[in-house]
Every structure is written in structure tokens, then in C-alpha cells.
């Protein structure tokens, strides 16, 4: 029997998207691990440079500054993500909507919520296929990829892991987005649970998990998830965990289920391929 404690485990961490990404891997060459980390760094920087709302140099920041009706040519990547976001808005029945950035911002500033109804992606944003450009149709529209960004990053990282043939990996992006491959060194899966809900346990292999919470800091603070149809902040004390093969799906579905009222959940879930979806409170 081999010695359990002799496993060589590699770890690296990155600061990205106002959060920390940790990667742990084993049963691979150190040199491959280092190369993957270099590439992850580039991927994270590129994504931030494309869809960060706060990074003054990002393409999205530039787009968000533009006025109504101006034709804004887009990079291939931002175009792809916007198309994706538009589709997610459709299949979540409008409950996942990246065009609510301004409303979320207003709420963070403490403004009344009922004035914050989102008009919806299709009413506020026009994507022109002919020249890959965007036009804002309504004033004060701000795009916010906050509910998708980590998923997008993890999907790209997943491709890298495949390319480098890293088979046993655990990635945590800010504790709320998880990507795993293979197994823990001493078991047949990666065990995972939530500190607040110790009974909720997952056995992960080639998986991704996204956790969204509407619990507010100090129970009175400013959650970021709003119901786009009512403009209301989702104050319900709720945690949603979604396990899926696709990190972006997991991210979007967990957010949409916080935003949407309970009677819409079944219809939304029907649109997604997921392995497990749990609402905890």
C-alpha cells in the first residue's frame, strides 16, 4: 500500500475579479502545474479586461460609458458573452439579466427599490449581428457580468485543464464557485460542503458548483441580487447551490433562483442541464 501522506499536492492562488481563486492539484508534473497557472493568470486578466465593470481599462467599462443609440463595435469575446447573456435572460424567463447594473448600483447607494424595475435586456440593449456592435436603447443602462464572470472564467480554466491533461484538480473561486476534476488524493471524489449547512454534502468529480446567497451582511446590508421584474432586492434568507457540468450554467441558475419567486423555479430549472440544485435556508 502506498503511503498516504506522500502525495505531492500543488497549490497556487490568484487575486482576480475582486476575489481570490485557489487551485489545488495532484498527480501531475510540477512543470505542467506551473504552466497551467501562468495560463490561468492570463485568462483571468483577459476576462477582467473584457467584462469587468470596475476596471477602468476594461472594454465593458468603456461600453458602459457610451450614450444611448451610439453604435459601439465590440470585440469577439465581449460579443460572445453578450449573446450568451441574452440567451440566459431568455431561458431564465428574464430573472437573470445583466442589463440591471444600474439598478443594482442604485440599490447599493441606498435608493428606493421600486424605482429600479429593469426594462429587460431586449428592451435596453440591441445587438447588431451585421457589424458585431451594440446600441443602448434606454438611458442609464449599465451592463454587469457579476453573475456570470466567475463561471466564464472557470469554463475557460476547465478547457486549460483538459489541454494540459491535469486530471485531479480542485478550484475554489471566492468560495462561491467551485470547479473540480478527478478525485481527492485519498478518496474517490472531492468532498464538499457548506460551512452554514454542514448536512449538505456533495461528492464531486468532474463538476462545477455555484453557490448564491441572498443573506445579507449583518442581516441588513445590501445584497446584490435583485428581481429584475419588480426591482426588489432579494432579502429572503436563502442559499442556492447548483451542481452542473457547465460552470456558467451553474452560476446563472443559482443567481436566477435567488432572483425569481418560488412559483417560477420549476419552469426555469427545466431550461437547464444540471445535476443537482438545492435551495437551503
Amino acid at each position, binding site marked *: 500500500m502506498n503511503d498516504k501522506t506522500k502525495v505531492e499536492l500543488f497549490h497556487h492562488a490568484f*487575486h482576480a475579479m*475582486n476575489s481570490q481563486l485557489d487551485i489545488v492539484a495532484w498527480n501531475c508534473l510540477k512543470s505542467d502545474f506551473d504552466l497551467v497557472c501562468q495560463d490561468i493568470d492570463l485568462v483571468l486578466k483577459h476576462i477582467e479586461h473584457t467584462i469587468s465593470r470596475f476596471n477602468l481599462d476594461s472594454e465593458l467599462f468603456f461600453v458602459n460609458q457610451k450614450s444611448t443609440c451610439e453604435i459601439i463595435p465590440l470585440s469577439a469575446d465581449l460579443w460572445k458573452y453578450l449573446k450568451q447573456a441574452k440567451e440566459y435572460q431568455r431561458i431564465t424567463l428574464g430573472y437573470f439579466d445583466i442589463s440591471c447594473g444600474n439598478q443594482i448600483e442604485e440599490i447599493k447607494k441606498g435608493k428606493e427599490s421600486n424605482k429600479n424595475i429593469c426594462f429587460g435586456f431586449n428592451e435596453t440593449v440591441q445587438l447588431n449581428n451585421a457589424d458585431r456592435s451594440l446600441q443602448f436603447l434606454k438611458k442609464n443602462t449599465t451592463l454587469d457580468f457579476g453573475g456570470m464572470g466567475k463561471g466564464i472564467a472557470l469554463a475557460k480554466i476547465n478547457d486549460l485543464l483538459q489541454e494540459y491533461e491535469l486530471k485531479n484538480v480542485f478550484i*475554489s473561486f471566492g468560495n462561491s464557485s467551485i470547479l473540480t476534476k478527478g478525485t481527492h488524493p485519498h478518496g474517490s471524489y472531492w468532498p464538499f*460542503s457548506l460551512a452554514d449547512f454542514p448536512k449538505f454534502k456533495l461528492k464531486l468529480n468532474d463538476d462545477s458548483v455555484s453557490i448564491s446567497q441572498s443573506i445579507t451582511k449583518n442581516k441588513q*446590508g445590501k445584497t446584490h441580487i435583485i428581481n429584475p421584474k419588480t426591482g426588489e432586492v432579494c432579502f429572503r434568507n436563502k442559499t442556492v447551490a447548483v451542481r452542473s457540468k457547465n460552470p456558467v450554467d451553474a452560476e446563472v441558475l443559482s443567481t436566477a433562483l435567488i432572483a425569481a419567486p418560488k412559483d417560477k423555479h420549476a419552469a426555469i430549472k427545466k431550461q437547464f442541464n444540471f445535476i443537482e440544485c438545492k435551495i437551503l435556508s
Partner: protein
Amino acid sequence: MIDKNQNRRDFIKNLALTGSVAALAASPWLSVLADNSITKGPNEQIQIAVIGTGDRGKQLIRHLFEIPGKPNFKLLAICDNFQLHLDNTLELLKEHNCSPKTYTNHLQLLENEKLDAVIIATPLHQHAQIAINCMQSGIHVFCEKAMARNLEDIKRMYDTHIQQNRILQIGHQRLFNPVYLEGMQRIHNGDLGTIGQIRAYWHRNNNWRRSLPNNDKSLERKINWRLYKEYSAGLLTELLSHQIQVAIWALQKTPISVMGTGSIRFWKDGREVNDNIALIYSFEDGTQFVYDSMTSNKKYGLEEQIMGHKGTIEFEVNRQYSETPPAAPGIQQLINNVEHGLFDNLPIGGSSWVPETASKYKGEPIVKTNDLGDTTLELEAFLKFVRAGSAPEKITKEGYNASIWTILGEQAINTGEQLHMPSEFIL
């Protein structure tokens, strides 16, 4: 309330106990400071005089009286060739029930008093002669930085210290600052990895002038000596000297060359020294010390940034930043579990997670205290050294190398050339 002095003392002691061999070799005064057994002749009072009782001299006197545990010393005399400063100092000393004799000439002081030690805080150009006279009279010397106005005087001071076997401690107080002591240990233990660059700067926005007593114009050069080349190298000797000392201490080697440039950009008021300087010091292993100082913008303040391939230290703000952040708590637990052969559940996602919080990485504090007290500590150490009869030689060398390279920096600016240390000044 916890006694802050006790805290500081415990902190130093702990550093001295836990430091690696390399770290202690780089800061040998740490062990002396931590050693409470230096009590040779504890009943004998150390007889001290302060020469130069201007701003810094008065500050040093204040710090002397703040040394915890009231070391057994007597401020026997003060000496200054400016009566107003002597009077002000006597006034200050009343609260300590101390009325030292006064002198206006250090030679008379040396002739008349039996001293163990002096503290010199005169303008720079006076340091060498006074310090040498004192050491030749068998007196240990604490002298403010920088050592002297030119290379030859710096060397003469050093040689006298060796010949007379007298302590010569230069007032680079960062050597005794807990943040620096702890940070240097980490640097010398390799925590930052390979250091490639040190950047330092000191920016102020004022004219650096002092008002003249009774607006007496004849006192201009005496009061504002910092602005005149005869007495000072301006920003170099007054500010850079502290920061090049930090660089040399961090790297444990002296530079091999310096180039620089400077100008009077803003304060065209008759001053002779530059108000705007930039220098690059290079080290044998390729490390660069990149420096600038100016007095017409204060946005960036002052800092020394030690930059290694694994991390960065910013001393003045007491912060260390890792290039690779440490593992998040849950991940650390995972790593530990694997190491111990455990296969446990990982409580990773949790309430600690707040959605979309914009948390920029701000690094970690080097030490968890904002009570630095470095000047008190350097004087406490000096008294200990005096009582022991000697100080670690390295402490004098720190002052020497910092001072030599400060003056070489000035010469590089003046000549526009890349300068190396002339061999006669290599210790």
C-alpha cells in the same frame, strides 16, 4: 492597560529568540537589545552630554527621558554655539528636574567634563570634527545621520572609532524600528524570494525652510543650513541617507555604482541644494535601488518598497504583500488534510462569503503595532552599548556605508557620471 514599553520589549526579545542565524547576523544589535544581562556596573551612572540642541537634539533628549526602566544616566552637560537653543533646552529639561551645565564650544566641554558618552546633533558639516574630538578623548559617540559632509570625513570618523576603540553609532533609527526588524528578518529568511528592485521615495510639499529668530537675516545660513551646500547635501543627506541605509540592510551588501540627476525645479529662492532628485544605485547581483525625492508634491509621501519574486514589503506603511496570496482558509484545510492522509469533508462555501464584495488585496501588516518608538529604542541600545563598552561593529558599518553612498550619490548628480566606490573607502 498593557504597558506599551513592555510590549515593545517582549516583541524585540521574541524576535531575537526566534530569528534565524542569517537574520540575526544581519541585525546583531537585536540580541544586545534583547539581552537584559548587560548590567556591568549598573550602579555606575553613565555621564552624558548632548552637543547640538536644535530640533533633533531636543527630540533626542526627550527620548532619552522616555527610555523605559529609567536607565541610570545623567545628562551632565549640553553644548550649543547658539544661546537661544541652549536656553530653550534648559527650559525643556526643567520638567525632568535636570539642570545640566551649558557650553558653547565642544572642546571646552571635553576639557571640563568627565563624560562616558555624547550625543551629537549638530548640522552635518560639524559631525566629523566633533565626533573625532570626542572619541579621541575616550568618549563613546552617538551621532546623528548622515555621518559627515564628505567621504574623507566619513572615513576619518570610522578610522578614529577603530583606533580609539570607541562606540560610534549613527542615528539611523529604522535599524531599531520593530516593523523593520521583523520585516528584515523575513527578507533575510528569504520570504520575499529574490529581490530584484528596491524603490524608495520621499516626497514633501513645503519649502523646507525654518523661520529666523526675530527675522534676523544674518542667521539664515545657520538656521537653514540644510539648504546650503557647504553644510549639507540637502535631500540626499537629510532624507535619502535613511532609505539607502534600509536598502543596504535589506540586501546585506553595498552598491557597486550610482548614477543620478537633480535640479532646483520649484523652490528658486536662493537655496543651493536641489529640490528634486532621482538616483539609481546598482548592486553586483543586478539588483537596483531606484530613488527619488522632491519637495513640491506630497501625494506619495515616503516609502521603501522591497520587491522580491515572491512578495513585496512596504516598510513605512507596515505592509507585506505576497505575489501569490496564501491559500484561502478552506483550501488550507484541504492541503493540511491531504498531508495528514485525511479524506474529510471541506466546509468551503459559507457565510463568510458575501456576494460581490469588492475586496482589493491590501496585503498584511508586518507587525500588529503602530507604536514604533524607534528613536527611544536606538537610544536605549546606545546606553546599553556604552554600559557594555562596545557595540556590534555592524551597526557602525551600517552608518558608514549609508553615508558613503549618500555622498557618492551627490557626486554622481554633480558630475553626471556613473560612480563607483573609490577603493580607499571600502572597509
